[in-house]
């Protein structure tokens, strides 16, 4: 196995109209790392995550996924994305979990999990079912396999969403505020599932407001503020002795 980073982002810039959301963000993520991205809302955390999986196009900068170039910027400042087929392949190495789950309401829990492997990979349902069973048992929802998402609690929905993403066998999992839409008493079950993934050495980037999770599970914590990545350090260090005054102010406000 090489030591090639799973994700390498360099100088990623993004603006929405007049608002500069990312002002040159660079980050390398190694295999098996769990990165927690923290920072005030509007700091560009989610946008950065969405750029990595190409839900947003960057204005400038370079992103590599497992050594393959998703986007690069030439000397003239023009962004060049890989051809669509390659983008789809790179995206296939990543799974994403959204704040609002984005489950398919017209499918049962089981079908939410098996649909993409069947339709996108062209696998047969019979081959995928055992795997879906393992995944749904892992997130503790095998007995809910025939329910529709509207019958589930927020925490259950999010665990289905995690199983759905894992069904595509990604190398990297991206979490965009996975517990922010949940009632406080439901965040625990989702965080436990994520912790389990981290223990299996899944490479993860988690945008979160759960400081305890960041402190205990993340190998590195990234602090973003106003489109800049201000600190990227091992969790223990960053929480014990934040270097940047903005980080310190943010952490104090979260306590």
């Amino acid at each position, binding site marked *: 196995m090489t030591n090639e980073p799973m994700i390498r982002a360099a100088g990623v810039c993004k603006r929405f109209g007049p608002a500069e959301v990312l002002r040159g963000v660079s980050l390398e993520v190694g295999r098996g790392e769990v990165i927690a991205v923290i920072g005030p809302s509007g700091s560009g955390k989610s946008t950065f995550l969405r750029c990595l999986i190409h*839900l947003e196009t960057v204005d400038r900068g370079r992103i590599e996924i497992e050594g393959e170039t998703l986007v690069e910027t030439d000397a003239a400042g023009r962004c060049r994305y890989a051809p669509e087929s390659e983008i*789809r392949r790179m995206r*296939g190495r990543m799974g994403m979990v959204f704040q609002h789950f*984005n*489950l398919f309401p017209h499918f049962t829990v089981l079908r939410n999990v098996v649909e*993409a492997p069947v339709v*996108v990979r062209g696998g047969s349902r019979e081959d995928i079912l055992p795997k879906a069973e393992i995944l749904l048992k892992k997130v503790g929802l095998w007995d809910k396999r025939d329910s*529709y998402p*509207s019958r589930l609690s927020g925490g259950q929905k999010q665990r289905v969403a995690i199983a759905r993403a894992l069904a595509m066998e990604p190398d990297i999992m991206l979490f965009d505020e996975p517990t922010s839409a949940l009632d406080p008493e439901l965040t625990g079950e989702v965080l436990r599932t994520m912790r389990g993934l981290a223990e299996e050495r899944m490479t993860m980037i988690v945008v979160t407001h759960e400081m305890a999770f960041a402190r205990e599970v993340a190998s590195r914590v990234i602090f973003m503020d106003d489109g800049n990545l201000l600190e990227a350090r091992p969790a223990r260090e960053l929480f014990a002795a934040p270097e940047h005054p903005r980080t310190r102010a943010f952490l104090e406000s979260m306590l």
Partner: protein
Amino acid sequence: MGYVFDILPALLQGTWVTLQVFFITLALSVPLGLALALLRVSRFRFLSGLTNGYIWLMRGTPLMLQMLFIYFALPFLPVIGIRLPDFPAAIVAFVLNYAAYFAEIFRAGIQSIGRGQYEGARVLGFSYAQTMRRIVLPQVVKRILPPISNETITLVKDTSLIYVLAMNDLLRAARGIVQRDFSTTPFIVAGAFYLFMTLVLTWGFQRLERRYAVYDE
């Protein structure tokens, strides 16, 4: 009562014409409407604008005028000039007209599906076509059943417009008998026929809605 049985064959013959126009129009205008809606929401500005213009034209002029135009005026147009017999002319007019209405219903349905569904599908690797077919359109169907039901019931009654091409639909058949026999009974029987047809449709759509009620959004 014996009189009703006497006029029944003529009315049933008219009903047969009405049903033919109804089913052929429905079978062709729903897919065409869906195709128009997909063009309308596509990111190709030119196609979207063109479709918008088409919908404006078809919804902005009377169906009867469109029928008369296709039957009487089309043959004299250069290049596309073609002479259609009455039945095909009526079908073409109905399909072109109803597709415009169905297109707007489909468009409203497609645009009501949130961005999260597209993004959820996209990160799982679905192509645009797969997203539409597997994720978006099945959810659209549930949402647009009530307006589609409305439009379909209107279509049953609009079929009576084909009398302008001298075709013997249910209503024209009834009117013929009324004028012959000086009795209003045929109108009442024809009304009962229309009510029965729309009753079947209403029932069918209610069943569909119940089928889609297994999930909530």
